[in-house]
């Protein structure tokens, strides 16, 4: 069994009037199948309202499937007994750094999760130290979160999740409110956790550049998974991506346009380096 296994997962939001009668049903996640192996770095792309956040909240049991099944680390998400277990296994980082930091001191915030699951005091301290060091925020342990930059706050939030020793972290647009420096900071921290600690990462993002380094990509549109594959496979198909109202990384776009106007370049160029090499290769031949 895969680490995360969703089968025919459906989630419906109901809109009700004052008398609790359903007036409208919105299927935000529609028949999604998804398999993620432990240790992978997964990205999920999709236009606004395509159901990414709704899907992500299932992985953390903030929402439960309307129909279909979801197993996280072998545990059934529909079974209420597993809720706390799954939340420990799959931590979640949200978009707005301010609205997910609970305590007024960095280290106390990181301790919040372990406190909730009843970790003994000595071990809380060890975990806090380990997690804050893993995201490079150890020096700020006694600071107030209000005085940190957005990227730093987001790293604290990641440390807060790490302190629960999850096998997987789901990040829902963690960089959407950050400046380019903050974005890089956070992304580097996430990649490091994936490589060094083997944490499975599920990154939801609107920035195509952030997707390049991942192992596998899912593209969602209107509740469906419409494309999946390695970043190279996904970005080779610029046409389909555009159909789903998505862009490609700037470099890929450039290569694509060059190719369209007759330069003989391969598909799915992802980085500057690759484009350089491809052009050099052309030059030499």
């Amino acid at each position, binding site marked *: 069994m895969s680490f995360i296994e969703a089968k025919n997962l459906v989630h419906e939001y109901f809109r009700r009037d004052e008398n609790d009668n359903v007036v409208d049903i919105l299927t935000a996640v529609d028949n999604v199948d998804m398999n993620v192996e432990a240790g992978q770095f997964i990205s999920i792309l999709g236009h606004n309202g395509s159901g990414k956040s709704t899907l992500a909240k299932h992985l953390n049991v903030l929402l439960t499937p309307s129909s279909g099944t979801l197993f996280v680390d072998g545990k059934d998400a529909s079974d209420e007994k597993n809720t*706390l277990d799954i939340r420990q296994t799959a931590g979640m980082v949200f978009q707005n750094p301010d*609205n997910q930091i609970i305590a*007024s001191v960095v280290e106390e915030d990181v301790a919040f999760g372990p406190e909730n699951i009843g970790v003994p005091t000595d071990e*809380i301290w060890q975990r806090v130290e380990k997690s804050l060091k893993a995201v490079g925020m150890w020096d700020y342990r006694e600071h107030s979160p209000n005085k940190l930059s957005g990227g730093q706050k987001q790293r604290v939030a990641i440390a807060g999740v790490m302190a629960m020793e999850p096998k997987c972290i789901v990040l829902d647009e963690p960089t959407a409110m950050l400046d380019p420096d903050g974005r890089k900071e956070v992304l580097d921290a996430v990649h490091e956790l994936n490589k060094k600690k083997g944490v499975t990462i599920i990154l939801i993002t609107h920035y195509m550049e952030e997707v390049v380094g991942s192992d596998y990509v899912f593209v969602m549109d209107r509740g469906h998974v419409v494309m999946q594959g390695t970043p190279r496979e996904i970005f080779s198909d610029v046409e389909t991506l555009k159909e789903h109202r998505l862009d490609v990384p700037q470099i890929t776009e450039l290569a694509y346009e060059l190719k369209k106007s007759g330069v003989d370049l391969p598909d799915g160029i992802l980085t500057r380096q690759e484009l350089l090499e491809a052009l050099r290769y052309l030059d030499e031949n």
Partner: protein
Amino acid sequence: MLRDITLGQYYPADSILHKLDPRVKLFGTLIYIISLFLFDNIWGILWITLALVCVVRLSKVPFSFMIRGLRSIIILLIVAGVFNLFLTPGQEIASFGIFKITMEGLRNASLMTVRMVYLIIGTSIMTLTTTPNQLTDGLEKSLHGLTKLNVPVHEIAMMMSIALRFIPILIEETDKIMKAQMARGADFESGNIFQKARNMVPLLVPLFVSAFRRAYDLAQAMEARCYNGGEGRTKMKPLKYVSRDRNAYILIFVAFVVTIVLKVVL
């Protein structure tokens, strides 16, 4: 402009009072307040002054910080003092037209002033030497017994600490919205009190919407991190009494006994 408000007035310093368990300080403050209202003679005043001076010295907090709180109640002090001075019936010692100053009035006015001033200074010492977090922790632990009476002690403490975290954020946000609305021509300064209140609507509506949105987000973030109420929670920084705290309790007790003795004997 709103950013100037500081919350919690903790003054970091390395003193024995800062190191004391917050529960001891809460208890001490309570005893101190009771004592303030127990005494009613000069010996009591002298004794409490002596105790207060010792504590002030121990705290290593500049005295000017402690009397800051007085500024906000100075009007109240003066009004109450004047009322007490002129309106207490009793033996007359001076009179200005229909106003009479009586012996009892003088006594009441000075007693009340001393009590209020000492009350502010005493409680300031507690808030100056205790971080807001320690304070909520201390309250939660001290009042834990009330859980049996179905008082949601943990929840109240959690609400207090979340409020402490979010008040600065909301203040900043108010500031931002205010500027944004002023840029669109909103006017928060002029007009009478009713017009002013009505002008606040474009400020309050977005502020409330945003506060609810934040509350929703925060609730989800807390749930995602396995928050499940107070049951079975451990603490990163549990409150633990050390010998220093026990000695402080003894000291508070002795001081209280002295107060009572002074009250009864003199």
